[in-house]
């Protein structure tokens, strides 16, 4: 076991952990987006979906998956901060002229900033939905999960914040998806162009998909 854990203390091992947890989080986002799309099918469809996850026997599996998910986020965030901190320390004196070579992308050089915004979003997101669904006092007034979502998305400040956060998710994944393949050692003449292209598609579908809900409920939703 010692050799296994030690692997993740090498720089390359740290990046391996980053890539594996990153892929896991992308997989989660795909499933999450699918689940959210029940919102477009109306109140009953969405409430039934939430009910199906939380109040049938499926709940035991869901709890286990939730724990893995929390660990996935925790390791990704911890590892990301650790890498960022070491990378900062590796150049104690900065350059005076900050011209960057024209070939590297802005997103790749600023992963920590897109990450921080996603992190802040995550906290607020959990407070607004996970907490409200479970413990929110609004439930006593008879509001369903669906109503909580609609009401939250109709707040202009939150709607804008949500959409902006999704722009940063796009930027994070724009670099992250193909970067994770490179980290895993997959850089191949035949496949890498497709991986880069597919990563951008994934980044767009996920971020635009999630952003579509607040936009829809703010601008186009006319009640039931």
């Amino acid at each position, binding site marked *: 076991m010692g*050799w296994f854990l030690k692997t993740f203390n*090498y*720089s390359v091992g740290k990046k391996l952990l980053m890539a594996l947890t990153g892929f896991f989080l992308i997989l989660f986002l795909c499933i999450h987006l699918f689940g959210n799309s029940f919102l477009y099918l109306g109140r009953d469809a969405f409430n039934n979906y939430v009910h199906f996850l939380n109040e049938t026997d499926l709940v035991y599996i869901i709890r286990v998956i939730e724990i893995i998910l929390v660990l996935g986020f925790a390791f990704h965030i911890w590892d990301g901060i650790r890498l960022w901190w070491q*990378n900062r320390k*590796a*150049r104690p004196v900065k350059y005076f002229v900050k011209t960057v070579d024209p070939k590297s992308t802005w997103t790749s*050089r600023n992963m920590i900033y897109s990450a921080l915004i996603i992190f802040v979003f995550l906290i607020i997101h959990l407070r607004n939905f996970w907490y409200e669904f479970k413990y929110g006092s609004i439930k006593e007034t008879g509001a369903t999960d669906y109503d909580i979502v609609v009401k939250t998305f109709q707040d202009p400040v939150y709607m804008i914040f949500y959409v902006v956060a999704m722009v940063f998710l796009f930027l994070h994944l724009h670099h992250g998806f193909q970067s994770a393949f490179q980290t895993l050692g997959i*850089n191949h003449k035949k496949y890498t162009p497709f991986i880069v292209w597919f990563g951008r598609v994934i980044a767009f579908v996920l971020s635009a998909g999630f952003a579509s809900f607040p936009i829809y409920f703010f601008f186009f939703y006319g009640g039931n």
Partner: protein
Amino acid sequence: MSSKKLNLTLKVWRQAGPNEKGEFKTYYANNISTEASFLEMLDIVNEELEARGEDPIAYEHDCREGICGTCGMVINGRPHGPLQGITTCQLHMRHFKDGDVIYIEPFRAKAFPVIKDLVVDRSAFDKIIQAGGFISVNTGSAPEANSIPVKKENAELAMDAAACIGCGACVAACPNASAMLFVSAKVSHLALLPQGLPEREIRVQKMVAKMDELGFGNCSNVGACEAECPKEIKITNIARLNREFYRARFLSNVEE
């Protein structure tokens, strides 16, 4: 092409020693021929400084033909200057315009401390090589080159990787001051050849461990190294280094 004369303003990082405080000083380089190389331009400035009894600008150089890798410096924010695929000594003044202001800084990395002015201590690279960048062979007369066949593709990939001159521009260009491109070039050219196989698993682990220990940053797959490398070493080598590392850690019994 007829030569022209340039008048330039240089802002050069001057630092008397490793523990001294450095600062930018302004110098004027007048009447510089467009046919001069960048280092010749610095030589002209230095001659004037010496004539005035001032300390000349310290910079490293040796071969002046892009082979030795000593002449690295950051010119207007770009390691080895604004052109692709060349070292500082191969940069010529015809790429500058009359009246240009040129900022010249040393490579910046914790693992490359400044010795004086533009000269940095790159012995960290030597330590990485000592950790594993070698093969064990008997001394004596050179072995027959063609006794072990090597497939053409590998021979070419190994040759491309072996083109690395250890200049450190990849570290200088990387926002994380990571040495991954250098290490990947060294690991790759040995891993691709039969002569490198006996030490294959231990080599990659030792070199990565040494790189980490010396305070280089981690690779974020930014690709600035590839863009600035004078020998155009590709980051496909970094992917190969990663594969070699996982192979050694997960599929072999060799522990560093």
